[in-house]
């Protein structure tokens, strides 16, 4: 079987299209590259949607935690503490069994027990909590002079937030937020190793990599392929976030601009 044929058969396998059976023997490099790459679609799906949705909740959580009103502050503080203080791995398990028992109560919750929605909800809340803490830290370190200038101009309430606090907060938080984004993409690899089942063997990149490692008993091929894909993804994310960072800092003199320093953490 030629490599082009393999790509045609398996490149969309993780979405349930193409060849139904996974290769069983005589594994070729081409098959491993194609299937693991196909699985990356899941990682991108989870990472992208959780990142976009999580951004909005994160801002709400940060503003809530920064608020003087305990009715707003306490729930935000607790959400951030619970999701940052426990392992994502346990959160996945807990959520899966929670959704499973909810499904028993009302069939409406059915979709939550499958990975595409249930795991997405967990990742969304998790990244919102981590980014919320980052944005909160940025809110705390907005220069006093900026706020005094806003006061001097008579800005209050919403215009003050929109024109002074919001842009400065984003600018200060961006390098750390970039790390969080990279880190979130890495975290998506956990989805199919915690409670959530891979329906019809449609899994993410790590799912296929470990499938090959189990079948061939040779970890030295599939895992480096996976690593290559992830390093590529990390470079793309860094590139996009770097462009946004440039735009956020475009008003600053050249030598004051913050450079992105990529320091992803390992695990959550």
């Amino acid at each position, binding site marked *: 079987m030629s490599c082009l044929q393999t790509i045609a058969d398996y490149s969309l396998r993780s979405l349930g299209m193409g060849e139904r059976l996974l290769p069983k023997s005589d594994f070729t490099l081409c098959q491993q590259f194609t299937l693991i790459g196909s699985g990356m679609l899941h990682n991108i799906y989870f990472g992208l949607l959780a990142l976009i949705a999580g951004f909005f909740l994160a801002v709400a959580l940060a503003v809530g935690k920064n608020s003087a009103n305990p009715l707003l502050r306490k729930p935000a503080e607790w959400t951030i503490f619970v999701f940052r203080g426990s392992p994502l791995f*346990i959160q996945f398990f*807990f959520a899966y069994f929670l959704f499973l028992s909810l499904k028993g109560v009302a069939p409406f919750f059915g979709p939550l027990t499958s990975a595409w929605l249930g795991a997405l909800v967990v990742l969304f809340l998790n990244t919102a909590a981590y980014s919320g803490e980052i944005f909160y830290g940025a809110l705390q370190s907005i220069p006093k002079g900026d706020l005094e200038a806003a006061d001097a101009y008579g800005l209050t309430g919403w215009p003050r937030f929109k024109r002074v606090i919001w842009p400065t907060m984003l600018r200060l938080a961006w390098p750390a937020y970039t790390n969080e984004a990279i880190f979130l993409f890495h975290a998506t690899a956990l989805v199919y190793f915690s409670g959530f089942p891979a329906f019809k063997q449609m899994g993410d990149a790590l799912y296929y990599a470990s499938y090959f490692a189990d079948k061939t008993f040779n970890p030295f091929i599939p895992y480096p392929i996976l690593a290559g894909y992830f390093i590529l993804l990390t470079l793309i994310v860094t590139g996009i976030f770097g462009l946004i960072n440039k735009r956020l800092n475009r008003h600053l003199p050249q030598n004051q601009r913050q450079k992105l320093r990529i320091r992803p953490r390992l695990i959550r």
Partner: protein
Amino acid sequence: MHKYSHPDLAKRPAIFSFCTDPDTLGQFQWLACYLTTGKHMGFYISFGTVLLLLAVTAPTALLFGFGGASAARSTFLPLRWFGKAYIAIVRGVPDIAFFLFFVIALDQGIEWLRHQVKCPDWDQPIRQGNDFVVCAAAKMPLGNAPQWIHEVYGFGLAVVTFAIVFGAFAANVMYGAMRAVPRAQLETAEAYGMTPRQTFWRILVPQMWVYALPGLGNLWMVLIKATPLLFLLGVEDIVYWARELGGAKTARFTDYPHADWRLWYFFVLLLFYLGFTRVSEIYLDRIMKKLTHGQATTGGEAQRKGAAT
């Protein structure tokens, strides 16, 4: 994945004397008996496994980190490349992939080395199609080894894997800390005629810890949250037992039948980790306060001002 179980735990006699016939018990007594079955003892012991892993891994990872950081700033080029590559590669790839990779890779590496030493006249290839074949004497642990050796070996592999992955992270922190030590300190050491080796051990290393501590504290929190991954490495840890004990049980297999309680078991794990994190946070804050006392850093300055007013 979990090929080893504890037959001895299941046979252990009950702790409370009224537990002989579970059917006759009231709610509270039933629960007391249920929570003290042999299998639950295994569950409680596995919390100890997690703590043991942390206790062994933290210093080992620190050692790896120190080695990595020293290598990354070595004057010998290949060593420097090695140190930097070690730090960079681990940071770019999902940790879980490393865990899955190293456990098989280490196991096969050890068996391959033993094979080369113990069976030099073996003529067949080691990789035969999809199989990894070494001679019987090179198996790790030996096929006839007792149960506990298998468990200790599995745990040891997990510790080394954790240490490699977290060592890279610690190396990153320490590399930064070594660069944060003021240059003037090292120049003074040189001016006093110290050799590079003396400067490193007597001036750089003692001073870098203050700079490394916030990062290392962070790393400790991350390490705590990585411990459930032990489950993926095939060790019978808390996640394994929570899944095992929580699953629905019928009266045929146990004296204590119940529905699917995995939700509650994982809720307990969640609470365990939240509590552990909180306690660590409080202690790290305290250590940091002590270490910054009198230091020429922002934190130390703030402390001084706070005391003065």
